């Protein structure tokens, strides 16, 4: 009868109290929207407190069984209160309501249900729960084979997941910030504040960070009195004092996310989550280098494991207290408190003080509690010692509890109507940050929790400890204990960095006498399997006591096995509430002590941080540096079809209106061969090598001889890695007696320079050689084609005749009034000059060439035309003919391998059996019989298959083009004994299986005598 009444009243529960709410500004009302409902809260509310105040206890559905889920906690540990927050470019899934500050216009929808939060079809999983124990998927869905991917998996994926996937591009911005401090203190509770005060007094640079928007942690809620002042007063005084210290910085809404090696800490700042704005970054990721780190991260209350402990309305005692004291919200009108320690009595007292009904306190300890218990009793609250909850009544909301003896097996003694349950299983220090970088833990029997083991702290670059812990995070469970501990820790830490904090007695707080806690991992002690299957450990992932016991029973004895088998602690809260309880159940099932079973590894971040903040400023145009040549803007304005080459962008070709990329390329080749082309070659590497030993050095670096090169002359050179492979090529010019200028490929510029420096600094450091990478100092333009000389002579200034500047020579001079260095080199087979001018002159010189070249229809060409022309000439291209597995011998470049030198980088490697093997594939030209273009990357088949049933091959295409000059497809490739098989026809299958027949030919397709380039 009584229960029915409660059912009816259900809708009236959870409202805002007339008074109270220390964090609220009741003067400022805030509008927000939840599941389409328009609601109101106050400035200072979290989304959680505002929803609660609007009687919205039900907030989501669990992961596996889709059971109704309500608030459990009031902070970062909340496993249930997750919502889809915001819209469009500001949409965020899985936003935690307890850490989401309310702002005007906030919109949120609940997650993981269909069609609605109140009626969710997925709940069928709940009715089938008995058939879906831990690891059930491993045992079924095995037959038939195709069913997993096409039937079962889609179903499981659909019912899993939580929030919706964002659809729109993020409209917010993010940034990073580097900070360097002596002491980083994480956590703005009274311990963190005191530690900052003491460390600050030592003169150290201190940064104190707090994840929430307010200071003091639990102390004000728990009614601490410090040095005779209220906690709030002491906190404000301390903040003022810290504010006056030049060497101390305090920052709120800045969460310590992770601690990494060598004192590196990651902190996540939320700048606009509480007040969306277009002109500020949403998040700022701090990368902090600290000599010492103090974690003052407090402790988290543990749930108790009793049947039905996941029904909405069952909350942590501390959370119930927080909502009343901080937000003036009651979780319920009739709240049963259940505990194994004294702290929960504070909740009963606070509720009573707020005029709410506490029908009963169930204290699992036969001996009951201490001073706080007496205070509660004095308030007329009924207390039942040695009693426990047999099971919770209710569906989407608690309606009552069945009481039993903790010692028994759950025989129901009485039934109490209530609409909320405040539970406390004790407190667990927040050891995450301590553990990230290797800090170890010890088990504390008295408080039944793991806390940091100071003797096994994370160590830094000097091998000494660099992380300390204080306050609740260190297991200090009283105010005065925490303050004293903080002062001592800060002094110790100051000493570590060679400073001394002035003497000062730590503040003193009035502590109440606490009776010892009694570990309770199951309620009641002797609960049978039926009850154990209703005791939730992990609310979000639906892991129950019975699941952990099943894992142990099946041999998943390692805590890591159990975690992975049951998914305990793998939810978005990463087990902040469930880990210790689960561990205790596992230990119990294995008949081992909890410390023997050990914990899972704590990994960063402490709570999830936005991907956007990790990327920081590096999005859109700032994603990666884009390197521009001095002519970049001209290219961009003249139809450049870009090709990324490293971080450069080079024009692949210049498209004219209505012209296809292919047509443009063909046009550029013909125009250059027929008359005159221009290429922006500025990206080619240019490295000065100078010194008495420069020649000797270059002889080691290049496979051919560079020391004998005459000043004024150029030579094409090859560079191999010490492992023998061809790594780069380019033209080397000798500038004077002890100076050379080495050209490298575009991709090679930086790493070849680094390669040179490496050998000079680490192997031949006694050689007198300096190098300088001057790649970007010059704009370099290739003037190519039969009219190249005409153009330069028209501009005038220096003698570029065959006699004055023969093939493979260079000279300084002036052309058209520009100071230039002209190289008479050709990568196209045409008469060609490469002209270098200072980068700042590049654009003007380019324009001058275009203007003067108009009479010869001067045609700028891109990288593809360049490739085709070099291929027509049989010149190899690094990255095409080479791929890191090719040696010069494969490419018929033996002529470039000096026989005179007894050593150069790669020479010894090339003597190894496989590299000396005569059967290596060698470079040849390839001509399709039908004139078509061979497919890129095609392989030539040989007869039969290998031992693994793969088709045998005898060669492959390395580059292939349609040659406008020859009007047919041409290709280069590596073929088994190729050079000895000129004229032979081999098969190149396409991926569709059809065969292209190609004849092996000489790789030089165009002007084999080299008459054109040598005029």
């Amino acid at each position, binding site marked *: 009868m009584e229960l029915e009444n409660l059912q009816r009243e259900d809708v009236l529960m959870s409202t805002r109290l007339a008074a109270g709410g220390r964090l609220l500004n009741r003067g400022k009302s805030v509008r927000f929207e939840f599941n389409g409902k328009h609601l109101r809260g106050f400035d200072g509310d979290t989304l959680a407190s505002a929803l609660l105040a609007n009687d919205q206890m039900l907030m989501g559905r669990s992961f596996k069984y889709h059971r109704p889920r309500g608030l459990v906690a009031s902070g970062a540990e909340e496993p249930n209160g997750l919502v889809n927050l915001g819209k469009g470019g500001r949409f965020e899934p899985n936003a935690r309501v307890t850490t989401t500050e309310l702002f005007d216009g906030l919109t949120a929808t609940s997650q993981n249900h269909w069609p609605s939060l109140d009626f969710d079809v997925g709940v069928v999983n709940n009715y089938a729960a008995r058939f879906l124990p831990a690891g059930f998927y491993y045992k079924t869905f095995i037959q038939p084979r195709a069913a997993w991917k096409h039937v079962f998996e889609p179903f499981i994926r659909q019912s899993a997941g939580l929030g919706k996937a964002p659809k729109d591009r993020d409209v917010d911005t993010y940034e990073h910030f580097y900070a360097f401090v002596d002491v980083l203190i994480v956590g703005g509770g009274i311990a963190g504040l005191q530690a900052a005060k003491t460390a600050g007094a030592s003169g150290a640079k201190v940064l104190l960070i707090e994840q929430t928007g307010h200071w003091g942690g639990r102390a004000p809620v728990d009614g601490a009195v410090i040095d005779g002042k209220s906690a709030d007063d002491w906190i404000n005084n301390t903040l003022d004092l810290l504010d006056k210290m030049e060497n101390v910085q305090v920052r709120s809404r800045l969460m310590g996310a992770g601690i990494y090696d060598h004192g590196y800490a990651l902190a996540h700042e939320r700048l606009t989550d509480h007040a969306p704005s277009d002109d500020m970054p949403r998040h700022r990721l701090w990368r902090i280098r600290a000599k010492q780190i103090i974690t003052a991260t407090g402790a988290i209350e543990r749930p108790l494991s009793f049947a039905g402990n996941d029904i909405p309305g069952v909350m942590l005692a501390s959370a119930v207290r927080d909502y009343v004291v901080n937000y003036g919200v009651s979780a319920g009108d009739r709240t049963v408190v259940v505990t194994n320690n004294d702290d929960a009595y504070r909740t009963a007292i606070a509720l009573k003080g707020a005029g709410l009904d506490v029908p009963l306190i169930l204290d699992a300890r036969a001996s009951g509690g201490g001073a706080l218990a007496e205070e509660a009793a004095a308030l007329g609250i009924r207390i039942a010692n040695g009693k426990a909850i047999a099971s919770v009544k209710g569906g989407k909301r608690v309606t009552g509890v069945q009481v039993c003896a903790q010692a028994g097996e759950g025989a129901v003694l009485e039934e109490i109507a209530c609409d909320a349950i405040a539970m406390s299983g004790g407190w667990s220090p927040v050891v995450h940050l301590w553990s990230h970088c290797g800090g170890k833990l010890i088990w504390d029997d008295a408080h039944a929790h793991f806390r940091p083991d100071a003797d096994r702290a994370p160590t830094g670059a000097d*091998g000494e400890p660099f992380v300390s812990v204080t306050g609740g995070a260190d297991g200090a469970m009283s105010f005065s204990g925490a303050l004293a501990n903080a002062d001592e820790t800060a002094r110790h830490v100051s000493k570590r960095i060679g400073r001394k904090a002035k003497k000062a007695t730590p503040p003193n707080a009035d502590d109440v006498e606490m009776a010892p806690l009694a570990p309770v991992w199951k309620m009641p002690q002797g609960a049978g399997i039926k009850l154990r299957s209703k005791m939730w450990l992990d609310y979000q992932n639906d892991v129950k006591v019975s699941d952990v016991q099943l894992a142990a029973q099946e041999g998943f004895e390692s805590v890591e096995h159990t975690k992975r088998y049951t998914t305990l602690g793998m939810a978005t809260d990463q087990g902040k509430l469930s880990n210790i309880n689960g561990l205790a159940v596992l230990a119990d099932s294995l008949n081992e002590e909890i410390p023997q079973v050990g914990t899972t590894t704590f990994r960063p971040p402490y709570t999830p941080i936005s991907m956007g903040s990790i990327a920081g400023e590096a999005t859109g145009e700032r994603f990666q540096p884009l390197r521009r040549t001095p002519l970049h803007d001209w290219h961009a304005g003249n139809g450049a079809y870009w090709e990324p080459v490293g971080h450069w962008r080079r024009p692949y070709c210049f498209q004219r209106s209505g012209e296809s990329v292919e047509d443009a390329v063909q046009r550029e080749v013909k125009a250059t061969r027929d008359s005159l082309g221009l290429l922006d070659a500025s990206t080619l590497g240019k490295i000065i090598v100078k010194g008495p030993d420069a020649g000797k050095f270059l002889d080691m670096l290049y496979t051919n001889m560079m020391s004998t090169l005459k000043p004024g002359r150029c030579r094409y050179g090859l560079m191999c890695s010490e492992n023998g492979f061809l790594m780069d090529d380019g033209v080397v010019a000798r500038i004077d007696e002890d100076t050379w200028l080495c050209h490298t490929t575009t991709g090679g510029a930086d790493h070849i320079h680094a390669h040179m420096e490496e050998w000079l600094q*680490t*192997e031949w450091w006694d050689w007198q050689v300096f190098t300088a990478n001057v790649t970007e100092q010059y704009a370099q333009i290739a003037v190519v084609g039969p009219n190249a000389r005409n153009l330069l002579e028209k501009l005038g200034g220096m003698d570029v005749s065959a006699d004055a500047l023969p093939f493979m020579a260079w000279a300084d001079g002036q052309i058209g009034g520009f100071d230039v260095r002209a190289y008479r080199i050709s990568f196209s087979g045409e008469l060609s000059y490469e002209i270098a001018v200072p980068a700042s002159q590049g654009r003007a010189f380019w324009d001058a060439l275009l203007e003067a070249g108009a009479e010869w229809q001067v045609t700028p060409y891109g990288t593809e035309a360049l490739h085709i022309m070099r291929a027509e000439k049989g010149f190899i291209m690094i990255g095409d003919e080479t791929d890191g597995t090719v040696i010069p011998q494969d490419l018929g470049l033996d002529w470039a391998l000096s026989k005179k030198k007894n050593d150069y980088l790669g020479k010894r*490697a090339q003597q190894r059996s496989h590299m000396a093997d005569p059967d290596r594939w060698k470079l040849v030209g390839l001509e399709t019989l039908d004139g078509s273009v061979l497919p890129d990357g095609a392989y030539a088949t040989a007869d039969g298959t290998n031992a693994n049933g793969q088709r045998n091959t005898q060669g492959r295409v390395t580059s292939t083009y349609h040659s406008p000059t020859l009007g047919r497809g041409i290709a280069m490739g590596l073929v088994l004994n190729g050079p000895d098989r000129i004229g032979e026809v081999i098969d190149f299958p396409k991926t569709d299986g059809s065969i292209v027949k190609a004849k092996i030919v000489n790789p030089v397709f165009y002007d084999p005598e080299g008459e054109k380039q040598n005029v």
Partner: protein
Amino acid sequence: MLILHCPYCGVDAEETELHAGGQAHLTRETVGSDDEAFEDYLFMRENPKGVHFERWRHASGCGKWFHAARCTTTLEVFGTYSAQTTAPPREICDAISGKRPGWSWKTFSARMFS
């Protein structure tokens, strides 16, 4: 995220300013050395669980290569020193032996070239 002191320019550089160059104090084998010695030089690496000598380049700094003695299991850095050496200097070895009793450069190199 390591920090290493560049012995050339004196900057305490973080990993993102540095380029890791692998094991230090290799002896270059070349023409004339046998296949095994050459293979050792190119591929065989100490890869120890513990004290390691390695090469780093202060890439986005002064550009100099230097050597570091570092523990691969604790990431403790015993010191950094010139790249123009064929063996770690005495003070580095002493620093290591102080922290890792029983350790000595000889046992390292002995294993390295056995």
